[in-house]
């Protein structure tokens, strides 16, 4: 990648808040520039590359256990190749390895890829750029947040290299299973590593989140009022608030689990007889863990999807050459979703013996959250209406997201109906729901972001033909994998089963599983294309001009170089909202935010 640092030019542009840069940046060495960098753009790239690698590993894990589900007991050279002779002996996996793979796959995807990776990449890249700031409020904390994230990712994978194997109680690691080493091998050292990794991850998320919040509040450039912020920044901002409010709860949740595991406390344990022995602990409750976990866990799923929706808002508007429909309604929806996401967590616990009345309350709040979600979907569709759609690969991914967000959201309404959840809780129906609404949607959103902002990340373009193939392959494979999964759930097949062959009643479902695994193979294959395109274009892709998509937002007013401090001269001044596309009476179909309002011109969508 070419790094034409405009160091000298950047001098006069520095504002007082980052004068400390001036002191060292002449001695910038390779280490401070690429490794322990405090520059938001470099940190963004670090998050992205780490996330791409983690996503790839997590995808390989899923492919291995999909092979087991489609052809239980069969030997596959590739399993042996990937897992080695210990875990992949004879090209097969045993139940414990299966559960370990499912657990680490889920944890890595949810936290490392779609939380750390997604927010880490795009909040870091776009918050300073789009609000017109020279960098994050604290470059140092920002750097720390990446390195905690990196350490946490390494420790999470470490589990595969220890004798007893990684954590294997599912990504939710409910105690007592996860608390008692006697209960399964995965609850030994592997679980300790999981907890250490997650604690570091939480620190990273909190450092990052606080930084994002402060930056958005404090460092907006002149004229950038809250109602002129691009929806991306709104999404990142609310996401950061959700994270700062909910991650500490996960931290306590994990801490109490650490105590129960190591110091003989009984927060989550009571009346247990295991391994031929009655345990001393009484008076705790595993249900307490579930409450604490899901108090984070539900906001967490929105921490994942909101940034993806934010990216989508921007990409759909830019490429439809139309203002995003209902800008204020979109902000309202983000805020409503953010608020409601804190009072719905109980819908993961309908079957825990929860008081049925309390269950009803959670049914009510959960279904409320579907309203702002629906508003967002309708607004996206209306933005396309009578547009002039330019099909960049990013635009395809964004439209794909709208589709999966709708299909997955609809099955959420079924699950939120506690009476219906009785029969489908913890079945493959749930797996289908959350993969479509969260997994696939957020991955599509993230890809959209990568294609769209690649010119800002690496100053070059990705190959569009490979991008098209990547999109269609991924989109088709996603529905190929997850659509039939609903039916497995409705046939009564539980989640997290190593094999269904212990139940003859499931034998007629085996070809559904083969069907699913075949599409999983397709999905994996097209990701290889992406991987190639990503690294190839980073170094050899065609160089991008300054504003390749004719966008209005501020990041495209900076030169196509990794300028330290972002703008070589003074900071840009903002005069209008970011969505003036195809505004009547203008000679171009876009009006950058830095263009002053004409006389009598109304801002914010009026004209």
């Amino acid at each position: 990648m070419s790094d034409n640092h405009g160091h000298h030019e950047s001098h006069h542009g520095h504002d007082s808040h980052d004068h400390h840069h001036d002191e060292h940046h002449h001695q910038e060495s390779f280490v401070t520039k690429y490794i322990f960098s405090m520059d938001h753009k470099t940190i963004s790239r670090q998050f992205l590359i780490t996330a791409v690698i983690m996503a790839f590993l997590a995808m390989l894990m899923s492919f291995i256990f999909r092979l087991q589900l489609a052809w239980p007991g069969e030997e596959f050279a590739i399993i042996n190749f990937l897992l080695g002779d210990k875990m992949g002996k004879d090209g097969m996996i045993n139940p414990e390895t299966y559960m370990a793979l499912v657990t680490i796959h889920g944890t890595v995807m949810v936290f490392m890829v779609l939380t750390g990776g997604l927010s880490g990449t795009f909040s870091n890249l776009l918050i300073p750029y789009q609000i017109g700031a020279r960098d994050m409020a604290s470059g140092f904390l920002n750097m720390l947040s990446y390195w905690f994230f990196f350490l946490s990712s390494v420790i999470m994978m470490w589990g595969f290299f220890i004798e007893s194997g990684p954590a294997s109680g599912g990504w939710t690691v409910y105690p007592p299973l996860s608390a008692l080493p006697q209960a399964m091998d995965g609850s030994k050292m592997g679980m300790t590593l999981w907890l250490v990794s997650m604690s570091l991850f939480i620190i990273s998320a909190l450092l990052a989140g606080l930084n994002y919040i402060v930056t958005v509040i404090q460092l907006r450039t002149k004229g950038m009022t809250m109602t002129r912020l691009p929806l991306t920044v709104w999404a990142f901002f609310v996401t950061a608030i959700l994270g700062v409010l909910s991650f500490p709860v996960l931290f306590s949740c994990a801490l109490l689990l650490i105590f129960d595991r190591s110091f003989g406390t009984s927060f989550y344990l009571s009346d247990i007889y295991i391994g031929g022995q009655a345990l001393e602990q009484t008076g705790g409750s595993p249900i307490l863990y579930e409450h604490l976990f899901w108090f984070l866990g539900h906001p967490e799923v929105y921490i994942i999807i909101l940034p993806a929706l934010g990216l989508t808002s921007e990409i759909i508007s830019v490429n439809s050459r139309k203002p995003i429909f209902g800008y204020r309604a979109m902000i309202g929806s983000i805020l409503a979703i953010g608020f409601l996401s804190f009072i719905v967590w109980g819908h993961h616990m309908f079957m825990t013996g929860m008081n049925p009345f309390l269950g009803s309350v959670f049914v009510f709040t959960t279904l409320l959250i579907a309203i702002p979600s629906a508003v967002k979907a309708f607004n996206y569709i209306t933005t396309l209406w009578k547009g002039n759609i330019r099909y960049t690969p990013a635009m395809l991914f964004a439209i794909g997201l709208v589709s999966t967000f709708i299909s997955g959201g609809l099955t959420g309404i079924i699950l939120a109906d506690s009476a219906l959840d009785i029969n489908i809780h913890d079945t493959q129906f749930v797996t289908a729901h959350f993969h479509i609404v969260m997994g696939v949607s957020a991955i599509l959103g993230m890809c959209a972001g990568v294609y769209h902002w690649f010119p800002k990340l690496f100053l070059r373009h990705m190959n569009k033909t490979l991008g098209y193939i990547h999109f269609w392959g991924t989109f088709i494979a996603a529905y190929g994998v997850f659509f039939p999964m609903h039916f497995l759930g409705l046939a009564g097949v539980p989640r997290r089963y190593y094999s269904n062959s212990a139940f003859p009643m499931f034998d007629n479902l085996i070809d559904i599983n083969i069907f699913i695994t075949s599409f999983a193979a397709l999905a994996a294959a097209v990701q290889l294309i992406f991987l190639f395109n990503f690294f190839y274009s980073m170094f050899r892709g065609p160089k991008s001009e300054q504003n390749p998509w004719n966008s209005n937002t501020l990041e495209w007013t900076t030169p196509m170089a990794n300028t330290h401090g972002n703008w070589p001269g003074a900071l840009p001044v903002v005069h209008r909202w970011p969505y003036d596309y195809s505004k009547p009476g203008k000679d171009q179909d876009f009006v950058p935010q830095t263009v002053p309002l004409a006389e009598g011109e109304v801002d914010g969508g009026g004209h």
Partner: protein
Amino acid sequence: MIKFLVYVAIILGALAIGYLVRVFELASSLKGTKPEVITEKDNKLQARLMLFFLFAFFAYVIWNLVEFAPRMLPVSASEHGVEIDWLFNFNMAILFFVFTITHIILFYFAFKYYGRKGIQVTYLAHDNKLEMIWTIIPAIVLAIIIIFGLKSWNKITSDADPNSMIVEVYAQQYNWTARYAGADNKLGDANYRLITATNDLGMDEKSAEGKDDIIVKNEIHIPVGKEVEFKFRSRDVIHSAYFPHFRAQMNCVPGMTTMFHFTPTITTAEMRKDPYVIQQVKEINAIRQAAAKKEGRTEKPYEFNYILLCNKICGKSHYDMQMRVVVDTEADYKKWLATKPAFFAAPPADATKKEVAEIK
């Protein structure tokens, strides 16, 4: 060695694609076009693909329904389950309608408004009326869904009939045990500290209510048409007692007792005669026999049974934690239960205890 070859192959493959892309890019820059610029031709192709996807997607959805729906669970064998199934279909009908409409509009717009020269874009930033409509309509639909849903939920989770029969289902890694309350229909006390090799459930000998309790492994029988109140306990980790055929489920949580009650309506024998079930069993047996033949073993034909399975990840054999459930006629049930002695029965109590211990 093989590993090494695979790596070499991967690297060579990547290089090959790299050169292809390079050649492609050079060729297009020779022609004077920029490969990264999106042309009208691109837009048109992708727009057509969007429309094509719409049709293919709905064909696929319908194919899924036709092909996979007949493998779903048979008709519910419990009273409340029929209501759940009705509610599910009712909600699904609404949601499927929404799914269809939104997807048609989404992909149709994506097709229709592809970018080309001379197109007239409508600058539309918001429209209060439209936005009101699509806030209020979902709100109304959701209100209907909530009202129907909570009505059923309240009914299903209301207190059990005081005369219902009480059965305990006890979970441990990786099996189930059932305890019948005996003539007094009351379960005796139990305590995890009393668990021994012969007293699997930790039953308290001193508890008067427990004197007539009966412990059964491997299968659980319940009489048709009678409400059963299940009480769930777990010895070690969280399990979930899932009775798919009865649309019933409840977590089993160590340290507490959870409950769920339902009324079975179809005996096992009757269910085996259901045409839908017969068809499924036939298909399953065809698959099983074919597999057995391929492996050169013989396989007893599968017979339909209700099942209780574990639905909360609980350890390495989570996938094989099951118990047969048999719904009998009242008379058959009584006959069956009469063959089972009470756990604390006077001699030959030893024999019973031994039997239980052995199965473990």
